[in-house]
């Protein structure tokens, strides 16, 4: 019945045959919707299916004979009854009374024109499901200088990102947004690290590349070096498809804050071995001028007391004399704990004799009191992190270069202490990098809850240092893999500087914010229903973000996933002489 096509426009020339294309034809470009260079619709042949995220290619022959290969991604698929006019006609059709045809069409957003002539595909042109090389070309994988697997597409094929946009050569930084618990942001960040270390994208630097991971929630990341017992068997296949080994991270150092009290034992519950406690000595605190990091709003010029903060920090830097074991002497006072330091500072800024030098000239008593109040407010939380009452303080200094991955646990700390640890650790790493003058090997920072450290409004030393990383890290070789629930609450410049943007499940109201302008409307809606393990990855070269699934982590991301390290034999006397 389709023999009579007398009223149809002639079908365009089959260019694909000329190119030796073997991908199967799944439909034709339809003429009832506008076909444009950026998007077009494909009417599916009977018994053919296109699903979201499938890759489609069509060819257009220009009048001169040149063939343009147009590639794209299925963005929306619709099915409808043709030949019916009323909603209730569906019942008539189903009951076999009214003839109607089901038509299925897929909307394709274009990703690539080869060569670059931006013409629409003509209605009637064959559309093919891109496979193999065609798919790689459609998604620009063939042009990528360094391919980092970032997950698999719905049809199980690997999806890559151009690592040149992560490692600083052409761009840097990764930013991940999504609702806590469902978006699996941190897990995805660890997956990216795993992929990075195991695919050779780092080249000869792989061994010397270091990662500093801040663990903000539970003790989740304190088991990265252990295999995941809950890993389903079928996930092995997905790792194989991505060319990745199945296994935990090999070189991981764990750092946790000391328990409150004099012991200095790391404050963790789910792991007893290979965790070191970290703290700063008073000597470092004074010498490196870390005092401002205690005050989240220290850079806010409207706050009078910030002047006092900077004066005191300056004084401590100048007047504190190291006594050798990490402690300092200020005047006649030897200071071994943070509490003692606070008391000395309080005495100095309130004593009429020293007030002008320590607090600054013509500072009102109210301002000084505000500073002291905040200082003692911090004492409760910072006391265990700044101390010189434990021997061998050098062993408790976070050293990101000691292991490939260093996990710094923050989850037991309150917000002020978290900011202090993050700010000072990154500052130290940043200074070290700046001093070395070499961008390679790279240092990666993984930090969740960016909104806490670099909020959109206000200024703080931590935000300052994170902005430094975002804006100058690319040339210094410090790459930030940042994450947050809502990108709208994070400093715009930090998100804007991230070349790779990843979105997990989003809150519907959040998904509509302009920060997610890189997501086409339908992807925004999809972002609100993404399941754990599915992310949307946007990269600079591809105009359309890709939806990817990443395999279940082969490393433990929770205490429950850890393999029992000591197997209990059935017979405890097994192997002993009898």
């Amino acid at each position: 019945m389709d023999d009579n096509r007398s009223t149809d426009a002639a079908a365009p020339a089959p260019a694909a045959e000329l190119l030796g294309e073997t991908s199967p034809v799944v439909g034709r470009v339809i003429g009832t919707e506008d076909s444009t260079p950026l998007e077009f619709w494909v009417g599916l042949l009977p018994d053919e299916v296109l699903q979201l995220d499938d890759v489609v290619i069509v060819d257009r022959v220009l009048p001169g004979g040149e063939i343009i290969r147009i590639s794209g991604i299925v963005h929306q698929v619709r099915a409808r009854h043709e030949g019916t006019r009323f909603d209730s006609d569906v019942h008539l059709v189903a009951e076999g009374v009214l003839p109607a045809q089901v038509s299925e069409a897929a909307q394709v957003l274009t990703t690539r024109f080869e060569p670059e002539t931006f013409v629409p595909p003509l209605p009637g042109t064959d559309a093919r499901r891109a496979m193999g090389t065609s798919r790689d070309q459609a998604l620009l994988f063939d042009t990528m200088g360094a391919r980092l697997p970032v997950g698999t597409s719905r049809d199980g094929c690997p999806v890559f990102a151009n690592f040149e946009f992560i490692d600083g050569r052409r761009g840097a930084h990764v930013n991940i947004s999504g609702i806590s618990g469902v978006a699996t942001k941190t897990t995805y960040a660890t997956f990216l690290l795993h992929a990075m270390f195991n695919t050779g994208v780092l080249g000869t630097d792989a061994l010397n590349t270091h990662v500093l991971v801040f663990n903000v929630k539970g003790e989740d990341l304190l088991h990265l070096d252990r295999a995941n017992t809950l890993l389903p068997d079928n996930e092995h296949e997905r790792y194989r498809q991505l060319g990745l080994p199945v296994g935990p991270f090999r070189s991981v150092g764990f750092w946790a804050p000391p328990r409150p009290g004099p012991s200095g034992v790391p404050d963790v519950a789910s792991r007893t071995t290979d965790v070191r406690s970290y703290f700063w000595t008073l000597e470092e605190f004074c010498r490196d001028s870390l005092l401002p990091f205690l005050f989240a709003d220290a850079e806010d010029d409207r706050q009078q007391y910030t002047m006092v903060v900077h004066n005191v920090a300056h004084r401590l830097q100048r007047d504190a004399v190291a006594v050798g074991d990490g402690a300092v002497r200020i005047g006649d006072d030897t200071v071994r704990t943070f509490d003692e330091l606070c008391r000395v500072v309080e005495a100095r800024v309130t004593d009429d004799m020293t007030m002008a030098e320590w607090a600054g000239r013509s500072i009102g008593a109210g301002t000084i009191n505000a500073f002291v109040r905040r200082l003692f407010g911090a004492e409760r939380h910072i006391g265990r992190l700044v101390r010189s009452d434990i021997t061998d303080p050098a062993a408790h200094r976070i050293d990101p270069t000691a292991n490939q991955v260093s996990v710094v646990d923050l989850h037991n700390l309150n917000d002020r202490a978290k900011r202090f640890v993050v700010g000072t650790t990154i500052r130290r790493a940043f200074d070290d990098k700046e001093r070395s003058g070499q961008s390679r090997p790279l240092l990666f920072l993984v930090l969740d809850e960016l909104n806490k450290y670099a909020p959109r409004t206000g200024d703080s030393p931590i935000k300052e240092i994170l902005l430094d990383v975002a804006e100058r890290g690319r040339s210094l070789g410090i790459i930030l893999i940042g994450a947050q629930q809502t990108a709208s609450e994070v400093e715009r410049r930090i998100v804007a500087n991230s070349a790779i943007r990843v979105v997990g499940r989003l809150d519907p109201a959040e998904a509509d914010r302009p920060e997610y302008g890189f997501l086409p409307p339908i992807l925004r809606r999809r972002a609100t229903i993404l399941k754990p393990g599915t992310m949307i990855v946007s990269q600079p070269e591809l105009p359309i973000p890709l939806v990817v699934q990443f395999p279940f982590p082969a490393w433990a991301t929770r205490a429950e996933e850890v393999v029992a390290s000591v197997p209990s034999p059935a017979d405890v006397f097994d192997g002993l002489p009898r």
Partner: protein
Amino acid sequence: MTGTGAATIAIEAWAPEYGAAHEPGELDEARAPVDVGLEVPADQWGPIGPSRASTSGALLSEQVGGGPSGAVAGPVLFVDGVRRVDAWVWITDADGQTHAGIAASYAAGAVLCDGAATVVAAEVTRRVFSPAVTGPIETACGTYLPTPVPSDEVQPLMLALQRRMGDLEARVATAHAQPGRRVVVDGPLRQPVIAGAVGFVKTHHVSYLPPMVRDVVARLGPGERTPLFLIGGSWPRWSWYLKLAGADGHPWAGIVRCELDAAEAVETAAARATEVSAVLPRFASEPHKDPRAPQNLYPIGGLERDLRHRLGDPHLVLRALRRAVART
């Protein structure tokens, strides 16, 4: 006020542009002789319901009448055609004589309802009808085959088009008629007749029934039919009136006339009439979905839409014709 009661008003179910199924005023009297006493004696005429056992009950028990929500049992093939004058043409032949003609497109198709309604056939043909001798007109929308007609007056031209469409319908019906399929052809039956095919007539121009039984039509309830009557003459046919479900208001609302070849015996014909009458109301359309509801059946309405669509956009076709003619 001279009447005995208030006047009742009924609104015609068909959309105004289609007129009415029953032509206003007196119907023409049938020219062919009509015999109303063959199934039931004329004095015993009355409505026949779908459940009434007919003379050959075996056939009846096989068929399942489709209620408003019931699925239709047994395949039914509906055949219909559409036609359109694409352009009037003026052809000056070799003798210098100018003739009028029409370039027309017509199509015929079939819908098979066997649980699903599927357009199983749709054929489109384009012809130019004119007494002048000419070659085919090749256009971007298809080729118009020359078709000679005796006169270039409107009536014969239209009749020729109508006949060609009928031929195409017959061809489609023949190609898809199979044993076990009830074939329903839109419009009166034509010769040569397809065995078992039922003609389905929506409009009534001729009064076939004598006054003594005529009121039975008005008494028909939804799904009921009149007894068979034989339309005689050179080509005798069985015929009966059927009231489709859902129509109300005036005596002839929702009435269709069906035809069957008179070659069949009266018992067989009656059984088939009962069987078809039980099935057809299921396909009756509703006023908001079809301007000629309920007589224009859903499958036929759907088929007509499909066929018209296949005739192509009239403006595009006209443009193609103009361009083709300008080229020659």
